[in-house]
């Protein structure tokens, strides 16, 4: 009777109903693989059916994994052909043979291994004088191949031996167990995939059962087809908004080509200053020189460089107009600030101004993970009567607090066109240290006086790069992952919205 029952079970077909029936009878499936062995079912197929029942909440599954013994490729070869020692024993035959002949028929690998085991087992003998190999035992069994057939029953010492001989390995195998789910039934109902317009129109939705949603953790919806803004430019928008909130007006910075005059001379940067070196600046061969420079202003700039004035002793060297006419790609947007201040000074009546810009500047740098030949500079400036150094710190503090950086301090620094000058440091919790985040200063009187700005008007300004805070915010260590054609577009599409603050 038992045999008959087993026979019946073995012929049971793999269907959802049969699985449900089995669970109904036994209350559970404790091990899916055992069940498959018992029923002669395919485990993959069983898994597929069960997952669909799980999604309908008819049953509940639980995954398990085991380490099981498994034959390696080498092990399977032994099962098929016999162990190397047995092959060698057979190869020697009753007459005996030479090692070279054995290698010819069995291959060097098999002979190397098999020979030494045969010697160990005392199955064969080797005459060093004649080179002849002969049998030294009769009725030899291939125990290796027999034992590999019965892996499960091997004791540990044998198991280790076969592991060492790379015939057996431990592999991970998963199985699952099943119990009844909240919607357990013996019949599988058909479920509607989703609600349709027809169902709504006919009212059939009232009778229908709907497939439950798969809300498992990590299961994603379908991605939308929308586009994305670039990471750095999202930060640019954030910075721009901060300036606008603070009442700053954007400067027209859409002129990458600039004369040395506006880029350096107007800023009272002497012509022999290292920053003007061709090592650091892209000069142009075409168009090589600027033709129009404001003549009167140029004269006053020259005088200030050469002999000083308004209380300054000047730089005391021979200023060259040719040098000032040399065209370049602007090295800072402060060149535009100089143009704007000059224009402001030409107006009949001075009105206080707050200006900002965020745009590209160029440096003739060798590229490395933190430097590019072009990057974006953020600049803010305030022009008004009797501004103080404390005002500069105040406006910087407000700017950075809107950015989410509240812990900042100022270090004396040197900048050729500002005095006093300050570096701005912010305490970064993540890095656990003070990071330099910008530079600032009060524009030198030697820069403002030749423009004819009224006496007593002071201009305070600060600058920083857009890339550096963006890299800190989005945790980039290589600037080339953020800017330029090598940027991973997928990364752009996955970056978060740009909130205030250097965190994310």
């Amino acid at each position, binding site marked *: 009777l038992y045999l008959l029952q087993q026979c019946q079970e073995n012929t049971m077909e793999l269907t959802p109903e049969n699985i449900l029936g089995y669970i109904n009878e036994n209350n559970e499936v404790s091990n899916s693989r055992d069940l498959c062995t018992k029923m002669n079912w395919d485990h993959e197929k069983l898994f597929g059916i069960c997952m669909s029942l799980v999604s309908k909440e008819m049953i509940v599954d639980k995954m398990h994994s085991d380490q099981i013994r498994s034959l390696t490729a080498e092990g399977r070869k032994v099962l098929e052909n016999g162990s190397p020692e047995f092959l060698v024993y057979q190869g020697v035959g009753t007459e005996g043979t030479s090692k070279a002949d054995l290698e010819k028929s069995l291959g060097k690998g098999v002979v190397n291994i098999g020979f030494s085991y045969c010697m160990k087992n005392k199955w064969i003998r080797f005459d060093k004088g004649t080179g002849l190999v002969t049998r030294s035992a009769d009725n030899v069994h291939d125990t290796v191949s027999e034992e590999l057939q019965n892996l499960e029953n091997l004791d540990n010492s044998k198991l280790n031996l076969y592991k060492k001989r790379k015939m057996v390995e431990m592999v991970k195998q998963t199985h699952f167990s099943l119990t009844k789910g909240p919607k357990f039934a013996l019949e599988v109902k058909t479920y509607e995939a989703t609600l349709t317009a027809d169902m709504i129109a006919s009212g059939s939705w009232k009778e229908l059962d709907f497939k439950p949603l798969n809300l498992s953790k990590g299961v994603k919806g379908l991605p939308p*087809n*929308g586009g*994305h*803004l*670039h990471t*750095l*430019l999202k930060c640019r928008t954030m910075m*721009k908004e901060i*300036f606008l*909130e603070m*009442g700053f*007006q954007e400067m*027209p*910075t859409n*002129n*990458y*080509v*600039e004369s040395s005059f506006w880029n350096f001379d107007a800023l009272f940067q002497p012509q*022999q200053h*290292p920053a003007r070196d061709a090592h*650091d600046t*892209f000069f*142009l061969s*075409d168009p090589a*020189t600027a*033709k*129009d420079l404001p003549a009167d202003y140029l004269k006053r700039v020259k005088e200030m460089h050469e002999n000083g004035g308004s209380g*300054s*002793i000047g730089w005391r060297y021979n200023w060259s107009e040719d040098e000032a006419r040399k065209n370049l*790609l602007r090295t800072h947007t402060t060149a535009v600030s100089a143009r704007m201040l000059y224009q402001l000074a030409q107006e009949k009546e001075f009105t206080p101004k*707050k200006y900002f810009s965020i745009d590209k500047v*160029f*440096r*003739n740098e060798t*590229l490395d993970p933190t430097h590019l*030949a*072009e990057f974006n500079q953020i600049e803010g400036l305030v022009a008004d009567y009797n501004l103080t*150094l*404390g*005002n500069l710190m*105040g406006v910087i503090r407000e700017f950075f607090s809107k950015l989410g950086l509240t812990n900042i301090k100022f*270090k*004396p620094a*040197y900048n050729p066109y500002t*005095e*006093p000058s*300050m570096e701005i440091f912010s305490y970064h919790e993540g890095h656990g240290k003070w990071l330099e985040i*910008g*530079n*600032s200063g009060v524009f030198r*009187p030697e820069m403002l006086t030749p423009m004819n700005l009224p006496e007593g008007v*002071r201009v305070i300004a600060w*600058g*920083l790069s857009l890339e550096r805070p963006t890299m800190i915010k989005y945790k980039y260590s290589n600037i080339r992952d953020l*800017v*330029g*054609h090598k*940027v991973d577009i*997928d990364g*752009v599409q996955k970056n978060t919205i740009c909130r205030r603050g250097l965190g994310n």
Partner: protein
Amino acid sequence: FFFLIMPVVSVKRDLLHEALGEVYDQAAFEDLCFDFGIELDDVTSEKEEIEKELGEGSEKLKDASDEVIYKIDIPANRYDLLCLEGIAKAMRVFLQKDPKPPVFKVLPKKISMTVEKSVESIRPHVVCAILRNVTFTQASYRSFIDLQDKFHQNIGRNRTLVSIGTHDLDNIEPPFFYRALPPSEIKFVPLRGSDNEVDGNQLMVELEKDLQLKRYLHIIKDSPVYPVIYDNRGKVLSLPPIINGKYSKMSKDTKNILIEVTATDLTKAHIVLNNMCAMFSGYCSEPYTIEAMDVITESGEIVHENLPRMEYRSTTASLKYIRSLLDLKLPSNEVVDLLNKMMLPSSVSADGESLEVLVPPTRSDILHECDIAEDVAIAYGYNNLNIVTPNTVTSGGQHPVNMLSDLLRSEMAFAGYTEILSFALCARNENYDFLRRKEDNLCVTISNPKTFEFQIGRTTLLVGLLKTLACNKQLPLPIKLYEIADVILKDSESDVGAVNQRRLAMLFSDVQASFEKLQGVLDLIMLKLGVSDERYYLDGNSCNDEALFPGMRANVMVDEKNIGCIGILHPEVITNFNIGHAVTVCELNIERFV
């Protein structure tokens, strides 16, 4: 406003502590530096440096010292802080361990330097001075050599503007002569490069092998005459700005020193001479005394009298200005105290309105009273000042071109396109040959690019879009990209001869080309810009853009003006940029919509 290159000075920590008369732990020293406006950049040792450079197995490590070295960033205008002596003195005064900076005593001149007319064409200026009864230690002699190096690199701009020669006065015979001669007539045994007498031409050949000196050779090499300093015996002391002669060679045991500074910039020559004398006259038997020299012409007229100019320069600074700039209500005498700490001895003027400030000969950074005000602020402490947001009332606003760009950037993203950000500079062949376009004399050309990547300003946004696509081929198709940015175009109307132009460029890439899909986006953008169908059409006949496939390209016409083009990219262009699938592109000048 950033990436300022600052000189870095290496000093031995223990020697610095000794000079300061106090041992600081590192954190306290860092704070002191921060307040003073210098920065402890790195802490290392000779051993560590060698390990970093040559690896752990280096032979040189055996003799290397592991004394702690502080590397300190110095503001680029403070030539008085480029050696341990200068840093220690400034800090001692700042910490009020010393009451004031040294006053220098210039002893009467005995020796002159004749500057001959011949040098005018090559290196016109020389200034000089003598230090007597100097006692160096190994460390102070090293500092003496290092400071000359610093000056050469820095203010001397790799010796082009200024270079220094220092000589053992006891081995040479005054007076001295600075003249220029054809290289073949200059014969001497140089300090390096040859053990035998060579002439100027041979020396240039020998020094080509000298890794350190060969980079200075260009300064005089092709000149018909070389500048040279001789003594009264007719022996060569130096061949500025390249090398000294062996004849006048110094050592740590040298007692009496001739310092000569040759230059193309006289102001800088004085700065260097003053600082050399100020820093090392401290080691004279009577500290801070210097023996004067005159520079005279061949006919005996005085060019520079009683060098070096070690007198303090007297200047005034308005108290009202300082108080207003710093928003400080300090009494005058406290402002004076602050300036004293910064090595600017001062006193209040009779009317109480201003300060009489004595600027030491080492403080060439003081040009204007704003420099004096800054030192008041540093001594007071920047972070102790009254921090107040300015009450300047203004109305904010955006630049119209940028405002339009931002609005269109959003529309493009809404349309399913991803924004890219590419470089404004590119290689010439990318901008023309790769796109099958002919040179049009519209691009600006860089004269000194460091890499091929940056030869010209782009005249089209397509280069950046296509390069970005080539680097992102693994993305699932279709790939839809756009960029709104500036190209640079030569323009004779502009003051500098070139202008930016704001463009919108977009790209659609898939297994098969689709003109209509990108046309749809163009239609949408026109719709959003309020350009009615009557004002806008595509003209296939007038479009000859070789970057685009013939018959599948058109000019974009708005109000009968050509504002750009749209089309399927020519297969050769796709191959040139190493892309592989079909690409449709569109590029528009959007400035007319501002």
